[in-house]
């Protein structure tokens, strides 16, 4: 330990032990504990205690005086545990009866402070820390702590209860580890006493009629199988499996959620490969008996397992498909075969029993919404996995998703009473709509028939056009539409859109047009985002261009640059920028119109310099960067003017993200002029001749005042800006390393004044680099600045100075001191 810290410790311990000295906050105690943990990891705890007797004094003081604040008491318990984690220190502390006093039966459990959850939590965590060696195990058994832990499992504080369960898991594992004999460390089949005690408790709990007790036992077991993969866990499961199976025979099944977790945890455990037979039986039984909601999670978990037997996979998939099959069946026009036969044979056989249960579930609104949302999300999760069931019933699933969307929209026609009821339940339900649209989007990745694709586009059209679609649903509908359009099969060798998407797109533009005029800004925003994506993908495609240009969408997009809502302006900037890059901008209505004269570039520059909100300005710089990358005609006409103008405006911007993006723009420009940055691992290719010789580039950089911009950004008070500027200047430094003479900075005219200006900026003064700085001076300035050092400094988080233990101790003492002074003033 740092001698300075050692010096401060006695005072701090005294302050902590003094109940009249309230602490400013809990976090400093946490930090202190963290620090002790780091210290004990590096040094011997015993030595630490011997060198700093104040610490033991603090712990003894805690034992003696019971009027300690609960926070300090909890801290001391955890601290004692941290020290006692090392066996020699444990023995040292035990000699003084300290540990028994703190964790034994006559300890804090009998104090009034025990009623405070923090103290109970500290007690458990202290024990958890010290339980690292066989001595600790004996201590736990002898001190009666295990019984207390059992009772704390049902603690009213969830944190305490959970920590108690975790401690049990840890103790069980430690006990089994200690019981392992021989140098092989293998378990010889005899349960150590402590483990037996815990086992007995678990068995008793599993047979209890009280659901909370069953839940506690199941949670302990779930953690055990999740964390320990030693051979003994197999025996453990063998012993408890019948009890777990018996739980499934009860009605209602207690703690069903925890039961599912346990079964999944066991199934995932690599140690249990040979006793899986009984597990699969239990899982199959659970899939049959649990409610569809709970069975769904278990089914998904099983399907994700790579080694799940086929019969069980079929049963599990049946559970997942059942709710959708019920929906399809209820809405099928003719009763019987057509609805069911859509599904691949066999998948639904095992789940027939639960069909009734699902039907009842679908009749209540909240249950119906719950199970459909869950099922859709689970199938969505399953779809991209390699171990998903095969053959994947793509067509029935698509049909079901479309049916659900139609039901929510009220457009599904069904003559059956079940269908009518479903329609009434789901009509206008936003949650199901969102889930179904997400699921539909996922299904776009699969092959499909043209017929179904038509259906999908039809239902998407309904959603996009309907005035009743809520803005969030509409946004999802746009995202799903985009996924379907992107994945639509194209004619080989032809980059064009297929006939179906094309037809859809033609009908879509009038809808987009109307939506762009929507009074809801969320809607306008979603449309613009969708439009940006659309034109990014199909901007070059002739049919798309024709359909788009025939509509008023480009004009409306440009008009939305003036939208009162800043998010919409930002999206309009992105969309208009994208359309313009693709040559799809609106034709000017009237040439005398001022906006038409200045063009989109002028309008965007105007937004950049005048818009009061950050989002549109950020969007403008992003569009400009993209334009520069893509060689947009307006930019290519006079790139230098463009860069100079943009950088000048950006440098004045108050939003740091705009400034960062301005630096990004500058970097793209530099890369274009100087070539890609050198990568140390790149195979040395013959250097492509740089388009422009470096001195000339430097000359132009001086003209554009890019150096000025970058150096100013280097001293920016926002760290990301400074970091980006540093990166940019390092790139420049690297590129110009081979260029110019070896003159010292001081020898070059202007270089010295440059340094002075930099210093002044650092001091917060205004001013500019001398305008007529020559490239040589710039280079010299670049070389003389310690950019690498700066980069390293900037990489550290801003509080690295304040993190040292010394300052923590000082701060804590200072708080205590101030309080002391105030107290004196009162008298």
């Amino acid at each position, binding site marked *: 330990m740092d001698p300075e810290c050692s010096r401060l410790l006695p005072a701090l311990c005294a302050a902590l032990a003094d109940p009249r000295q309230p602490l400013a906050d809990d976090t400093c105690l946490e930090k202190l504990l963290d620090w002790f943990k780091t210290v004990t990891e590096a040094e011997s705890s015993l030595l630490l205690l011997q060198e700093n007797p104040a610490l033991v004094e603090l712990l003894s003081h805690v034992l003696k005086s019971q009027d300690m604040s609960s926070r300090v008491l909890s801290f001391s318990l955890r601290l004692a545990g941290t020290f006692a984690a090392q066996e020699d220190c444990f023995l040292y502390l035990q000699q003084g009866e300290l540990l028994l006093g703190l964790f034994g039966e006559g300890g804090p459990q009998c104090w009034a402070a025990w009623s405070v959850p923090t103290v109970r939590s500290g007690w458990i965590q202290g024990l958890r820390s010290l339980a690292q060696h066989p001595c600790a195990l004996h201590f736990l058994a002898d001190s009666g702590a295990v019984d207390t832990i059992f009772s704390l499992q049902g603690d009213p504080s969830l944190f305490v209860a959970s920590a108690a369960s975790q401690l049990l898991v840890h103790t069980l594992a430690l006990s089994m580890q200690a019981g392992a004999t021989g140098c092989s460390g293998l378990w010889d089949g005899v349960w150590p006493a402590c483990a037996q005690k815990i086992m007995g408790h678990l068995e008793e709990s599993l047979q209890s009629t009280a659901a909370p007790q069953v839940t506690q036992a199941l949670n302990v077991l779930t953690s055990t199988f999740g964390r320990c993969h030693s051979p003994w866990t197999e025996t453990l499961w063998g012993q408890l499996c019948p009890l777990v199976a018996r739980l499934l025979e009860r009605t209602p099944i207690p703690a069903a959620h925890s039961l599912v977790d346990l079964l999944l945890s066991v199934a995932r455990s690599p140690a249990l490969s040979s006793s899986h037979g009984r597990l699969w039986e239990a899982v199959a039984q659970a899939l049959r008996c649990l409610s569809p909601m709970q069975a769904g999670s278990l089914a998904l978990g099983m399907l994700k397992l790579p080694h799940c037997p086929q019969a069980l996979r079929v049963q599990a998939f049946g559970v997942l498909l059942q709710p959708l099959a019920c929906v399809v069946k209820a809405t099928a026009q003719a009763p019987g075969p057509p609805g069911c036969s859509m599904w691949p044979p066999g998948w639904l056989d095992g789940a027939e029993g639960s069909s009734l249960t699902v039907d009842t579930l679908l009749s209540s609104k909240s249950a119906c919404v719950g199970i459909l949302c869950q099922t859709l999300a689970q199938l969505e999760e399953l779809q991209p996995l390699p171990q998903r069931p095969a053959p994947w019933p793509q067509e029935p699933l698509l049909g079901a998703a479309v049916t659900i969307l139609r039901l929510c929209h*009220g457009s*599904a*026609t*069904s*003559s059956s*009473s079940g*269908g*009518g*009821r479903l*329609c*009434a*339940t789901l*009509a*206008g339900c936003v949650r199901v709509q969102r889930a179904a649209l997400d699921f539909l989007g996922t299904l776009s990745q699969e092959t499909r028939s043209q017929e179904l694709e038509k259906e999908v586009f039809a239902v998407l059209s309904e959603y996009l056009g*309907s*005035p*009743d*679609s809520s803005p969030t649903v509409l946004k999802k509908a746009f995202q799903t539409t985009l996924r379907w359009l992107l994945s639509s099969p194209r004619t080989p060798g032809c980059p064009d859109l297929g006939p179906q998407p094309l037809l859809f797109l033609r009908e879509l533009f009038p809808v987009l*047009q*109307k*939506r*762009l*005029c*929507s*009074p*809801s800004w969320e*809607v306008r925003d979603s449309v613009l985002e969708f439009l940006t994506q659309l034109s990014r993908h199909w901007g070059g495609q002739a049919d798309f261009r024709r359909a788009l240009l025939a509509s*008023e969408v480009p*004009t*409306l997009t440009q*008009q939305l640059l*003036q*939208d*009162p*809502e800043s998010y919409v302006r930002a999206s309009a900037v992105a969309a208009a920028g994208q359309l313009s890059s693709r040559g799809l901008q609106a034709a000017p209505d009237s040439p005398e119109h001022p906006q038409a004269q200045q063009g989109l570039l002028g309008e965007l520059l105007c937004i950049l310099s005048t818009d009061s909100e950050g989002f549109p300005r950020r969007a403008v710089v992003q569009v400009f960067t993209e334009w520069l990358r893509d060689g947009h005609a307006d930019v290519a006409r006079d790139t230098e003017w463009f860069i100079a103008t943009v950088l000048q405006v950006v440098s004045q911007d108050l939003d740091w993200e705009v400034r960062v993006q301005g630096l990004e723009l500058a970097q793209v420009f530099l890369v274009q002029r100087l070539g890609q940055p050198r990568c140390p691992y790149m195979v040395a290719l013959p250097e492509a001749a740089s388009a422009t010789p470096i001195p000339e580039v430097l000359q132009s950089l001086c003209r554009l005042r890019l150096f000025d911009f970058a150096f100013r950004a280097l001293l920016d008070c926002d760290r990301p800006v400074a970091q980006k500027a540093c990166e940019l200047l390092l790139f420049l430094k690297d590129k110009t390393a081979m260029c110019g003479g070896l003159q010292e900075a001081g020898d070059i005219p202007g270089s010295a004044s440059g340094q002075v200006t930099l210093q002044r900026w650092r001091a917060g003064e205004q001013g500019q680099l001398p305008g007529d700085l020559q490239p040589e001076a710039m280079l010299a300035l670049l070389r003389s600045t310690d950019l690498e050092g700066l980069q390293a400094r900037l990489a550290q988080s801003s509080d690295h100075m304040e993190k040292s233990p010394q300052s923590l101790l000082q701060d804590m003492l200072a708080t205590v001191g101030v309080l002391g002074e105030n107290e004196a003033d009162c008298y």
Partner: protein
Amino acid sequence: MKLYCLSGHPTLPCNVLKFKSTTIMLDCGLDVTSTLNFLPLPLVQSPRLSNLPGWSLKDGNAFLDKELKECSGHVFVDSVPEFCLPETELIDLSTVDVILISNYHCMMALPYITEHTGFTGTVYATEPTVQIGRLLMEELVNFIERVPKAQSASLWKNKGIQRLLPSPLKDAVGVSTWRGCYTMQEVNSALSKIQLVGYSQKIELFGAVQVTPLSSGYALGSSNWIIQSHYEKVSYVSGSSLLTTHPQPMDQASLKNSDVLILTGLTQIPTANPDGMVGEFCSNLALTVRNGGNVLVPCYPSGVIYDLLECLYQYIDSAGLSSVPFYFISPVANSSLEFSQIFAEWLCHNKQSKVYLPEPPFPHAELIQTNKLKHYPSIHGDFSNDFRQPCVVFTGHPSLRFGDVVHFMELWGKSSLNTVIFTEPDFSYLEALAPYQPLAMKCIYCPIDTRLNFIQVSKLLKEAQPLHVVCPEQYTQPPPTQSHRMDLMIDCQPPAMSYRRAEVLALPFKRRYEKIEIMPELADSLVPMEIKPGISLATVSAVLHTKDNKHVLQPPPRPAQPPGKKRKRVSEDIPDCKVLKPLLSGSIPVEQFVQTLEKHGFSDIKVEDTAKGHIVLLQEAETLIQIEEDSTHIICDNDEMLRVRLRDLVLKFLQKF
């Protein structure tokens, strides 16, 4: 209790409730959809309309060609438009005691009832209902009267001829009772019979029932009504809304625990959400205007238009429409806009609080001030000088059969740049547009109906818990066009009772109690006796005095004085007061009774149990004592002595007072 249903239109109801000797008419709606069968009345001579070909029968017989004209395959009556009145034959309307009006749309038939049926009662309505109702009537009369039509067609109404006509004329119901519009004089006379009421005001009707208007949240001054006696409560829910628009919110709590809830005036477009429709309205309006087109909004001069103007107030700047003029043309435009600003107490909380700032509650005041919204009584006069295109015009009538809207349809119908946006849900837009076909202008249908939808109704019924629900038959089944939507109907337990036009419903509840007052001096004289813990009884001798449906127990007149001292006439008037027999209470324990009988020398006693009690058989005396819950009979063969003996034994077990 009976309900007479005089209108078949669920949102323009007219029902008569007979309840406790009062006859109450609930609303007085006028079904204007009949006018859709007529040709529009153009403000300016329209060559297109006047040159429409006459209609002739299939066999070429053209005797109806003066009355019926054909336009794009539809046949219209070329005459002054006529309205479908409430049934007048079902019940003698002169017996109606009061008419309760729930909102200004539901009082349009009032002049027909108050002026032509011998009605002598009172009409109750809130002030905004009356004022805005007057505006609607005034507009209607003005629209019809300012374009006098020489011809009045009646031949087609002949039953034999009507059968030969094409649909929908063939299927029109009760055409012989259709009537032309009333006059302003009749309107004034009808309105003079209205008595103004405020929300939650209790109005006594002949002492028999109390009626109370409650805010219904649908329109300015719109109300639901509670009709209650001491032991019965009927709620009448008509045109209510739970949305936050301009009127005061709906009072739902007071509807709780009704015996009967009569439910009318639900949304006519249950599948359209008003928010979505307002969005559609704004988007389409902006799209049209941006393209240089004009927008026509056929509407009523009050109601949703206030909300639309408020939405536009927020929207036009963001949509870059600040320079587009908005015109509101109606003979009552000015009054409507002004009235809306002065009924502060009838507005929602937000708008009420604005009045204290003080600011006008509706932002259309600012639109008018900044010249963005201009209003005119008609297209003639100032409007023609100010008229600038592209523009947005709000004008009536939404049926497109009369009013200034006819002119704009003729003017703008030919260009596809223009758009007509239907926001009023009362008329089918396709039928409204039929006489304007072929039409190039775009038509957008965004009906905005803020009245309760079926989800809201089911919540309302769950909370209000009425014993019985009564509603128009249309609400008990899904709409014919969406027969699969089981959610678009009223779903309650027990199932709602439905009615249709010209039907009389006996409402399923019986009156069981009546409240009677006891005069204090009579109450003083009563001596209650406790017959079991918590229950005391007293005999009352009194005179029941009933007047104005109030019942009072008064002390009886003094007993007759010895004759001679009083004059004869007086003593004749006094009712015959016999000596009162004591009243008996209690029950006879059979076993003890038998023991007592044995003690008194009766032997050979047999007891039989019957369904209602016991029979005690005294075989020796050939006598039967029948003991039931509320009666005891002693049947013995002409032995009065024995009967009296037995009677006294029975009486021993009973309490007397």
